[in-house]
């Protein structure tokens, strides 16, 4: 099972993982032998996996951005998404 990310850790895209150019119509996370299509919230999360934002900060910022959604649900979704990205070796926690 994937473990829950520590709220104080700073997620960063793993070596070999990057976003495609902003000018592209469909934003994707490019990684070895695969690409992940990103929609609104997933792109917002990935853009903050820069080694500067803590998990806690990402949660707070997205709760503001999606203020109509249940804050608890936003938090759960982000933690689950980051854990999956870590398991796929797309994100490291620093």
């Amino acid at each position, binding site marked *: 099972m994937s*473990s829950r990310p520590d709220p104080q850790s700073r997620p960063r895209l793993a*070596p*070999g*993982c990057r976003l*495609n150019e902003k000018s592209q119509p469909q934003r994707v996370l*490019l990684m*070895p*032998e695969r*690409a992940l299509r990103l929609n609104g919230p997933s792109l917002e999360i990935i853009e903050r996996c820069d080694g500067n934002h803590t998990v806690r900060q990402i949660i707070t910022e997205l709760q503001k951005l999606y203020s109509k959604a249940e804050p608890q649900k936003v938090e759960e979704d982000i933690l689950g998404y980051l854990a999956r990205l870590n*398991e796929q070796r797309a994100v490291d926690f620093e």
Partner: protein
Amino acid sequence: MSGTTPRTICTQLGMNTAIPNPLALVAELTHRCPLHCVYCSNPLELTKRERELPAEAWARVLREAAELGVLQVDFTGGEPLARPDLTEIVRAARAAGLYVSLITSGLPLDEKRLNELIAAGLDHFQLSFQGAQEESAALASGTRTHAQKLCVARWVKQRRIGLTLNFVIHRQNLGELEDMVRLAEEVSPGRVEFAHVQYYGWAFENRARLLPSREQLNRSLEIIKQAEERLRGRIRVEYVVPDYYAKYPKACMGGWGCKVLLVKPDGDVLPCHAANVLPGMKFENVQAKPLRTIWYESDAFEKYRGEEWMPELCRSCDRRSQDFGGCRCQAFLLTHDAAATDPVCTKSPQRSLVDSILADVNSAASAAHLAPISPSDWLYRPNPR
């Protein structure tokens, strides 16, 4: 949305009006290689150096691929590092907006050249290993290059790009699988692949000495399962079973002309790397036609796209949208009919062809005969003349 869209009607009718754009380009830059692996996936007829596309032609092909919707390019060969202009080609790929992988043996390379490749935009370095130690690797590759590969792995690991270790596994080196896992753990790449040899090209010629026994295969599955669990969150472990032992065929290339296109060293464009074994195929060349025209309109890409070509067995099968009838090259190599159901499928009327090959390699007599072996037992892949 409810109801039937035009696209699903087309699919139901086996029509093919909605051709998806390709997502990945496999670019075989050269067939020259410092290694001589007995299971090389290159064709038996290798492209000569003087017929290789120059860097400017590759730059144009890479731009055309990106415009078609391709996201990623895999530079392979042969050995892509055998091209002195590789850095220039990598730079062109990145400038076109592509994600750039190098599929390589790691030779010839030093740290200076690695730095240049990374500065040019290399995203991901996939390094092949032929065993867990020099002796077994030398038996498969016909060269002593294992120590150099370990060195290259450390160099790449010290820099911030993706690293995959790719172990090619087969009858002769499966006994070292646990050592390979340990080696991967020491290097700690983001990703490790343990890929059983598949039987095309040179591997088809050397099959009897490469195909593992069922006992070996089962043991390897246990080792990989344990490794996956132990390494979760640290190293992504991927495992590829030999088709012959599978119940259903693989979705070869994600479907013929669906996701991937391959450009050979001379610019011929193929739907898969082995497609030139198929009879009656005519491949277009990037020097003569735009990639877009080749992808959407050429006979080679149309030939096995969609479902029209399928035998009734596949056309009426629920798995047809998962495995697309399997691999055309495998079907041809085993049944001599490129449009047959892939005979590894348990539903295929010709599955007995595969079963008899498996019965042979699993018999006690063959176990004694096939291992251990010496270099003179193999057909090594030479360099193109």
